[in-house]
């Protein structure tokens, strides 16, 4: 009987039959847009070196992804925009005078080792840009140190941690050291640094030039619903709290170094951060804790990179321990993982 088709067959797909207009590319472009003010300001402030850094980083990042897909005969994925974000963020995490070949290697490593080897977008366990940056800094730390206008943190560290005669473990420990550092040895007034840090600070990487513009971009992403406030809030909040606990100036510590770029743009990378809301908060706090400890008790001037990479590593574990509660399932029923 009525199994003949009288009306033309149409597309049949699963429900739901409508989708939101949000797309992956759209999200990535929002991130780029949010970074744009900082990037443009960096170019205005630093001139051609910044242009070169951005260009090399982005071109190599995109080129690596293109070539990888071409060689593996996979569909091209440049359109998703994630390689662009990676290239941009890598450039912003490096000092402007980084030799171009180092930037190129960093971008290659970021995309190839940081992302594609794991299966591409969505599968990497660590933040690709930071993998690239860590590779570069650990490989040629000496060279980098020579080229960079050392940022506030390097200066600070020179006075406090690396001070020649305070080297033995005991004196470095605890509040005393930073107390002393805060009270005198800095040689400059921390509060007086707020303004340059917010607006124009040419020491350090491209992403340290203006904290104000980064905050602006970050807020835009939060308002647009692209990033979760929990990560930056946890990060920056913890950072400030610990600085305060160490008797130092929280505002200064939050504004200086890579914290703003890291908290708003790098720790929030979807792929390498936890999925659950609670998890994101824990993760943000972890980043802040690690970063602050790195500054106050560690030998290196700044540890945003390692803080985020470390928490990337913990993200799956955090996810496991903070799984959302399923509607109607009472917690006690649940087997503890």
């Amino acid at each position: 009987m009525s199994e003949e088709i009288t009306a033309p067959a149409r597309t049949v797909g699963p429900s739901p039959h409508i989708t939101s207009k949000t797309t992956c590319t759209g999200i990535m472009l929002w991130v780029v847009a949010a970074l744009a003010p900082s990037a443009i300001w960096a170019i205005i402030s630093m001139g051609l070196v910044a242009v070169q850094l951005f260009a090399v980083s982005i071109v190599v990042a995109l080129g690596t992804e293109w070539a990888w897909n071409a060689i593996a005969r996979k569909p091209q994925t440049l359109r998703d925009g994630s390689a662009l974000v990676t290239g941009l963020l890598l450039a912003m995490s490096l000092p402007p005078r980084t030799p171009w070949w180092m930037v190129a290697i960093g971008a290659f490593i970021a995309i190839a080792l940081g992302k594609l080897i794991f299966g591409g977008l969505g599968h990497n366990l660590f933040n690709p840009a930071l993998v690239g940056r860590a590779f570069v800094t650990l490989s040629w730390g000496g060279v980098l140190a020579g080229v960079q206008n050392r940022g506030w943190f390097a200066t600070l560290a020179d006075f406090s941690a690396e001070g020649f005669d305070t080297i033995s473990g005991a004196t470095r420990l605890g509040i005393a050291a930073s107390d002393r550092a805060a009270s005198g040895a800095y040689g400059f007034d921390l509060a007086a640094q707020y303004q340059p840090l917010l607006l124009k600070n040419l020491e350090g990487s491209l992403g340290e030039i203006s904290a104000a513009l980064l905050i602006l971009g970050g807020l835009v992403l939060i308002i647009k619903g692209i990033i979760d406030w929990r990560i930056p809030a946890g990060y920056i909040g913890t950072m400030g709290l610990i600085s305060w606990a160490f008797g130092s100036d929280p505002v200064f510590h939050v504004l200086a170094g890579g914290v703003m770029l890291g908290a708003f743009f790098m720790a929030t990378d979807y792929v390498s951060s936890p999925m659950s809301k609670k998890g994101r908060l824990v993760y943000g706090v972890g980043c802040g804790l690690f970063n602050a400890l790195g500054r106050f008790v560690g030998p290196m001037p700044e540890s945003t990179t390692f803080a985020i990479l470390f928490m990337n590593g913990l993200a799956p574990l955090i996810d496991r321990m903070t799984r959302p509660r399923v509607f109607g399932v009472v917690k006690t029923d649940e087997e503890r993982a």
Partner: protein
Amino acid sequence: MDLILILKAVVALSVVGLVTSTILATAAKRFHVEVDPRIEAVLAALPGSNCGACGNPSCFVSAEKMVEGDLAPNACVAGGQTTTDAVAVILGADACAAVAVVSARHCGGGDRAVRSYEYAGVHSCAAAARLAGGPLLCPAGCIGFGDCVRACPFDAIHLDERGLPVVDLDKCTGCGVCVKECPRGQISLLQLVPEMAPVVVRCNAHDKVKSRKQGCSACCIACKKCERACPSDAIHVIDMLAVVDYDKCTGCGACVEVCPQNCIDLFGRGVDAVALDGVGHGSGAASIDEDAIAEAAGAGA
């Protein structure tokens, strides 16, 4: 002087050795636990280095799992082939059961089956089968998204250029996973047949012949020519579909010859893949092209 040092050394290590071995010897007796002798045997065959490379916490656990069949005998990486062989001997027929049946596809549609709509979902047969009765007009036909391919634990199935699954009879162990997995399997699109089954009917339709002909140009039309041609009374049209009785089928191929729809195929090791392309279907002539089959068998092996 030398001697004293040697003496001290001997005393020190002997004390340690004596204490530990005595404790162990007594413990071995005191805390003895009965275990399945086969586990003991397998355990003895394993290297005992407890390296964990197989993903199990210890050789004992691996041995248990091997005996229970949860772990393949070749799982031990440290022991390598020597160990695998030894374990296989102990577990014997337990581990690798004789292959008696294989999976056979009872559909010849593929690109000859008529699509009922443009499908816009996931490439999964199970998923597509639930949407508006499935993307084929034929309610029983192979959807061709390869759930069976992905499900087969032995990598024995692949899709041919017509989008139909082909079972590699050398790899198929007859485990039946694909049969369970196929959303059309419950109504027996994939079916386990004797490993040495000589012919297979490539149709699985149970609806009316008229509607099935609308949906597919390769279907069984229940004309009963095969039934009449079979000298051994081994093929019957039941419920409007030809069904082979493998207890009686001698593999003479008479039905293959007469089927006007070419929907009965020669089957068996090596033939399956090629038979699809029509090799072996004489166009009305009485004899099967033996060379072609032999060639096909050679190529498939």
